[in-house]
């Protein structure tokens, strides 16, 4: 094919002046854009930088006034101290037991809430009953009741149920609050899920739970990720319920971190506090990094449509 080649050559000879000019000349608006974006980036990342560098230097370097400087002497002692020996409340246990408390709280709470939310969404969209809209409305309303309002009734409830001051009690509280949101997510996702699939499965002989388990749940990946990230972040970061409904041996990480920072007598060990704060933030960070990619996709695919 000689003709096209010839054309291509002439086309290319005509081009360089145009592209060359733009490539050589600096595109100022674009440069400005990147500079501004870079500044914002630094601004937002600065706190993390401060926390990180100060958790890795001896206390003396911090009190000497070098907040922004890199450590002169690198050390992981503050991390070890925050994890296992620091004074938290009355005991010098470090944050470890509370980290475990938080895990014991967040994993079952997220798992159960997500499954119940999925089941609710399934029933509210595919097995609509009289009053389904009202039930959904009430569940939604539950999402927006301020936490403070339920503190006293909830304390009474937990007492009656015999799970006051336990991790189980916290799991229960977070479940109750989380179900509204998880139901909202799954309901909107399943609303876009064709009813004909459920009908086809019925004709194929699948029952209520088989349809849920075999057909809907395997297709719910994106929205499950959204739901899990949302719940995990909220429950892990919650302070109010943790502070209100836990005893010393069932406090979650957030409350323990507060105690660590507040209760130190004598010298304030800023480097240990920074290390503890990063530890408290790591799990949510981890969840975002692992699943964040699906987060946006999930938001796009289901919950935005109504």
């Amino acid at each position, binding site marked *: 094919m000689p003709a096209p080649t010839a054309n291509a050559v002439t086309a290319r000879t005509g081009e360089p002046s145009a592209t060359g000019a733009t490539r050589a000349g600096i595109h100022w608006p674009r440069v400005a854009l990147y500079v501004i974006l870079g500044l914002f980036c630094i601004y937002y990342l600065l706190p993390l930088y401060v926390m990180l560098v100060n958790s890795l230097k001896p206390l003396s370097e911090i009190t000497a006034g070098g907040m922004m400087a890199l450590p002169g002497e690198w050390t992981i002692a503050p991390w070890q101290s925050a994890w296992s020996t620091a004074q938290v409340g009355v005991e010098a246990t470090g944050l470890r037991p509370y980290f475990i408390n938080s895990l014991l709280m967040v994993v079952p709470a997220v798992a159960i809430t997500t499954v119940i939310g999925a089941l609710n969404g399934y029933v509210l969209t595919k097995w609509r009953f009289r009053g389904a809209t009202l039930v959904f409305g009430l569940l939604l309303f539950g999402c927006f009741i301020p936490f403070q309002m339920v503190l006293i009734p909830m304390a009474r409830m937990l007492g009656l149920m015999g799970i006051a001051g336990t991790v189980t009690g916290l799991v229960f509280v977070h479940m109750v609050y989380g179900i509204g949101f998880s139901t909202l997510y799954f309901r909107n996702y399943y609303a876009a899920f*064709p009813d*004909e*699939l459920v*009908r*086809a*499965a*019925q*004709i*194929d*002989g*699948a029952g209520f739970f*088989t349809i849920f388990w*075999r*057909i809907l749940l*395997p*297709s719910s990946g994106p929205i499950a990720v959204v739901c899990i990230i949302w719940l995990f972040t909220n429950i892990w970061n919650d302070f109010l319920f943790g502070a209100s409904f836990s005893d010393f041996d069932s406090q979650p990480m957030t409350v323990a971190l507060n105690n660590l920072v507040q209760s130190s007598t004598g010298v304030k060990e800023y480097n240990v506090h920074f290390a503890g704060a990063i530890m408290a933030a790591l799990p949510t960070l981890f969840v975002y990094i692992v699943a964040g990619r699906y987060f946006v996709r999930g938001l796009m695919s289901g919950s935005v449509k109504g």
Partner: protein
Amino acid sequence: MGFLDIDRVTKSFGGLKVLHETDISVEEGEFLVLVGPSGCGKSTLLNMIAGLEEVSSGQIVINGRSMNGVKPADRNIAMVFQSYALYPNMTVRGNISFGMEMHGIPKKEREKKIAEVAELLQISQLLDRKPGQLSGGQRQRVAMGRALTRDPDVFLFDEPLSNLDAKLRVDMRTEIKKLHQKLGTTIVYVTHDQIEALTLSTRIAVMYGGYVQQIGTPQEIYDNPANLFVAGFMGSPSMNLFPARIVSANGAPAAEISLSDGRSAVLPFAGRDGTGEEGREITLGIRPEAITEPDGADRKSRAVHVVDSRVEITEPAGSDIFVVTQMGGKDVTARFSADVPVKPGEDFQFAINMEKAVAFDPKTEARII
């Protein structure tokens, strides 16, 4: 008693009656098409046969067994849906096998059946793909494959071709017909496309407004529509319907129609005596193929009448040319052979075959002649 009996069945949603008392009896091996515009109750009726919706009153009997209160899975039916409803998370193999798995059929038997069905529908090479990787036509085949594994008493099709493009639709139509001839299973098929209804069915039930308007073979429905709705709905291009008046011509009833230039023409109905209804206003119905150029008129017909009328528009359609003129103040389409030199704006002779003409009461819309 037929193989599938719809016996005085009605359906209401709250106070809204979507299906009025309906009786249809389907023989084994029949291909019944329920056809009608959106909201006529055809899909509701199909869903009630499937058991996806309960009947409000009456009963549905399949193979001698009343289906009231019987779950869809226990009715020995299979259904193909408009959106195909393939499970997106399963492979084609999984989709086809799911129903058998739910009915507790052992794995070996399932594998055998899958291979058999895949062979029949030529989807063997697709078995390990997910529905998302298939084209519309392939999905359609898989959906049919899923239904076929059941050896059902009755196949139900809910507008299975309406998501396909025009070419594929025609191909799949032929395939469904072939499948029916091969398997001989009773089929109930819902569509809003009257061409599908005419080409596929052994019998058609035309539905509108929650009533079955007419039930009969495609030929009966086409040639002898029971009312104005059926006449206008079935056939493409649709039947010409225009106002006329009954007069007496040589002792027999005839239709007097006005032509575009103010004259009128008298067209005697074929093979009818006596009138007693002179002066009655009617809606005359004549299909386009019964209005032709004089040379193209049906030679066997003994009631061809020629009128002059002005040609308004011509629409060539390959083998034919559709010619639009005015009769009774309405546009009327005639079907000429493609080689007739007909031009818009000229007067031309139109041969009307009155053997094929029908007449309706404009108010009640019921058939008169």
